[in-house]
């Protein structure tokens, strides 16, 4: 077994969302007033919505939102439908459901339920909910798009996202594990590529036609793949005011490799289907604070494949 400690770049703050933003949804302006006050007293910034349409609009405008509080007694007459629509569009957003009643649809279980906003431990439960690792939708969507685009445009390979899941432990598919660190004030961590050696070989033959391939060549290819994925993610994050700097790719090789990232949080794993095999892109975060910056904006910059004379 080979064990490698991967050095992070400059920023190794623990994973803490700097500010807590809650959106409270209730058709009645006064219904959850006491809960709003208690949330604010406990450091939350609270926005209010009175309809489902308002809710979805506000969530779109506030990608850094950390909690949705829903008054289950009456939201657009159909609470299960409301929560289903939010869940479909934003599966990453924790939902606290405030209702004295049972939720009729068992498929729509919110992350946490409280019978009344006046429950003594509601804030404690809310903090517990936020203690879970949480990844904003724009990062999940961004990494998905950046990976499929990079594979298609740079490596002539179509990839399909099969699933996104929390990473607990994962066995490397092969003996070659490319890693690329990134760091920034708001976001830092590592991107790891987990694919089989045969898949690396197939990918390399798509771009470089040489008969002999050493494992170093395959590792180099993996490092460059991560470089191009993360380069795109960097441009994507910049639209949200989040700056990251790329490190240099490194490749760990050996059987039954264990990677330990100092202070890393449980990451998320993107499972892609490419060239008839699984290819996992693992996103491990050492620090994340994506709460401070505003809505996505267009930025100046070149797109992949573009050339500009200076």
């Amino acid at each position, binding site marked *: 077994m080979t064990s490698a400690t991967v050095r992070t770049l400059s920023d190794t703050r623990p994973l803490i969302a700097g500010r807590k933003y809650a959106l409270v949804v209730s058709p009645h302006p006064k219904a959850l007033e006491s809960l709003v006050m208690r949330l604010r007293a406990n450091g939350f910034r609270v926005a209010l919505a009175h309809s489902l349409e308002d809710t979805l609009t506000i969530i779109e405008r506030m990608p850094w939102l950390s909690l949705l509080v829903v008054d289950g007694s009456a939201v657009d007459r159909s609470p299960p439908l409301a929560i289903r629509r939010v869940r479909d569009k934003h599966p990453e957003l924790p939902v606290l459901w405030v209702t004295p009643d049972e939720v009729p649809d068992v498929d729509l279980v919110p992350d946490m339920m409280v019978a009344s906003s006046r429950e003594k431990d509601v804030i404690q439960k809310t903090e517990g909910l936020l203690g879970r690792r949480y990844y904003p939708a724009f990062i999940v969507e961004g990494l998905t798009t950046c990976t499929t685009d*990079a594979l298609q*445009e*740079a490596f002539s390979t179509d990839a399909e996202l099969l699933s996104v899941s929390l990473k607990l432990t994962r066995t490397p598919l092969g003996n070659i594990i490319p890693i690329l660190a990134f760091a920034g004030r708001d976001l830092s961590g590592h991107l790891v590529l987990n694919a089989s050696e045969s898949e690396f070989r197939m990918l*390399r033959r798509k*771009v*470089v*036609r*040489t008969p002999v391939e050493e494992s*170093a*060549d395959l590792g*180099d*290819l993996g*490092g*460059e793949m991560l*470089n*191009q994925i*993360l*380069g*795109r993610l*960097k*441009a994507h994050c*910049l639209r949200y005011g989040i700056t990251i700097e*790329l490190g*240099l*790719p490194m490749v760990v090789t050996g059987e039954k490799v264990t990677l330990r990232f100092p202070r890393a949080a449980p990451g998320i794993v993107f499972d892609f289907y490419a060239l008839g095999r699984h290819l996992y892109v693992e996103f491990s975060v050492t620090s994340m604070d994506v709460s401070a910056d505003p809505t996505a904006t267009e*930025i*100046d*910059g*070149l*797109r*992949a*494949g*573009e*050339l*500009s*004379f*200076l």
Partner: protein
Amino acid sequence: MVAVRQWDARVHPPQVGQGGADVELARRQWMQHTILVVDDSATIRQQTRTLLESKGYSVVEAADGAQGVEQVKNAPVHLIIVDVNMPVMNGIEMIDHVRKLPGHAKTPIFVLTTESSSDYVRRGKEVGATAWIVKPFKPEVLLPAIRKVLSA
């Protein structure tokens, strides 16, 4: 051996019909443009080399900015393609060094990188880069740009 002839030939280009096959080879190499590809990824270097050689260019390689500067000092280079994020010396620093070398104030330098932000592009422009390309390169974009600057 060929490299020495090539270097000599740059000063006194051999004439058609003059000398034997080795002189003819040197003459062709004198006419051929040499492009230096600087990238820490062997995959990118090989990919770029394959494309450029298929179009008749001669290609030399370096794996980081410091090696790239040495290549420029030691052999004739007509155009440089350089990445930004590299160990030892990054691409921006390398361009800064190359621009200070005698005879390379106007050598075309293309930056080929995953970096796309206007801030990086501005830094490239400040040190004297000729063009900025965001990876992956498209042959139909890269090759006309190379022809354009080498024929200027």
